[in-house]
């Protein structure tokens, strides 16, 4: 696998390197940047952030359900990774480690959110209070949006909402496998389960999600 990364970390330093493309095998660049970052090179760490921020942010978003929460958690994750990077010895894959850190943060945050705000969860389509009064959240005029696109958007919203109704441990495996596309082997390492148990959990999670989507009228027989 090859990765081409526009290294905008270098933009500020050297205009001649404004768009430096680095083409390396995944393991090569990862190893090099980790070693540099472990020696205190913040720019190397920033390259790692660039390479992983999308994955971390999206994992957090699907786990927590809210964009703002996900961004806040993503920052926390990378600060923690930065702080503990020296302890990373390369025994596990770096991506596995980052996923583990992210998932642990998500679990803690979900625990907190459950404890505090479960009663205050608002519906996705509940009106929003403003200074001007109450308005509906979805302000788009659907008039010029093709029906197919509207349906797809609606389905995405409902699937996202259905994910939020899944048990936390079910959501984890579904997000890692069916959304993030990790291999069973890697997920097993991230969540610390034998592959057999993981597959069994994933199946149950999908079946439960299927039931939820059925109730929502999303899936059709």
């Amino acid at each position, binding site marked *: 696998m090859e990765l081409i990364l526009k290294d905008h970390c270098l933009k500020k330093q050297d205009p001649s390197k404004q768009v430096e493309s680095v083409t390396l095998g995944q393991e090569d660049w990862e190893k090099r940047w980790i070693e540099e970052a472990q020696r205190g090179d*913040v720019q190397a*760490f*920033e390259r790692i*952030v*660039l390479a992983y*921020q*999308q994955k971390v*942010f*999206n994992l957090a*978003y*699907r786990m927590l359900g809210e*964009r703002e929460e*996900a*961004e*806040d*958690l*993503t*920052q*926390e994750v*990378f*600060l*923690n990774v*930065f*702080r503990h990077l020296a302890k990373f010895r390369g025994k596990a894959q770096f991506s596995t480690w980052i996923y583990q850190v992210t998932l642990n*943060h998500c679990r*803690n*945050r979900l625990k*907190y959110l459950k*404890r*505090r705000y*479960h*009663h*205050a969860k608002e519906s996705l389509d509940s009106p929003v209070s403003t200074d001007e009064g109450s308005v509906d959240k979805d302000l788009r005029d659907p008039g010029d949006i093709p029906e197919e696109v509207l349906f*797809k958007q609606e*389905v*995405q919203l409902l*699937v*996202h909402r259905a994910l939020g109704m899944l048990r936390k441990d079910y959501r984890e495996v*579904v997000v890692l496998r*069916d*959304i993030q*596309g990790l291999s069973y082997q890697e997920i097993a390492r991230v969540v610390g389960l034998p592959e057999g148990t993981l*597959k069994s959990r*994933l*199946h149950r999670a*999908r*079946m439960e*999600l*299927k*039931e939820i*989507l*059925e*109730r929502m009228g*999303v*899936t*059709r*027989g």
Partner: protein
Amino acid sequence: MKTGQTREIHPKCETVQHLFLPWLDGELSPHVVSDLEAHLDTCAFCAEAWVKYRQTVRYLSELEPLEVPEGLLDRIRARIHRRSLWRRLAEGLLPAPRWVPLSIAASLCVVVVGFFIARWSPWSPEPHGLSPETLLSTKGIEAFPVAAYEIPNDQRILPDAEELMRPLRALEADLERRFTRRATLQDDLVLNLAGSEDVFNRIQELVREARGRMFLMGIRHRKTGRVVRSRMVIQIPLERYREVLQRLEGMAEVSHLFLERDSVPVPPDRLRIRLIAVSSLEETPPEETLQMVSTD
């Protein structure tokens, strides 16, 4: 029959549906697949379940990834930079001898952290309005500030605790059920001093963003003269209270003290953080706040 409806699943159907995952992964041998297909031809229940199972997995895989928020890297970079700066300061100026007992080291840490924040903070080191001594002077104890700094603003503290209760009740009904009025008005958190240099910076930033006020101080027992507790007191505008509390609790080094409130001493390597909601709507004599703050 709809799969969503409750029904007794026939053992054969259960077995078939357990094979959906390896089937979808293409891990089944051809003869098992043809057995399954034969079953689906005769079982509408499993046939429908199979269609919906695949739809579910497809919908998940089609979920569009969200773009990373603009400026995320900059925000991470800024926080790392602040941490690095702090670390250099701390490493250069704070050699911690190994023989110093943990409790003394912790106290020193609090004192020196406060000193540095006071010296290096871009905020004014001069307290505006209420002094920390005033805020924390209560029956049986007196406070001495090791650092005092705040963001100038016009916020005052409510005179009547009940005034604070109303909006907080709406926000935190679960707290109201579990805790007393005082508990609803304030939150105790504990900061692990092992990661203090970074977390102090983050808390400082958080408080500044929320236009709050922050005091770091030791509390000396009036009679014995010993330092009995180190504490950070943070006052946050009511409207930002929930958000700030949530973000504080999200920090790995900060733990919540829901059930330990004022009854369990904080270990010497920890620092208690007291978060108090304040409002800019009312003017308040400081004495009212003292009653909320006092614990000993």
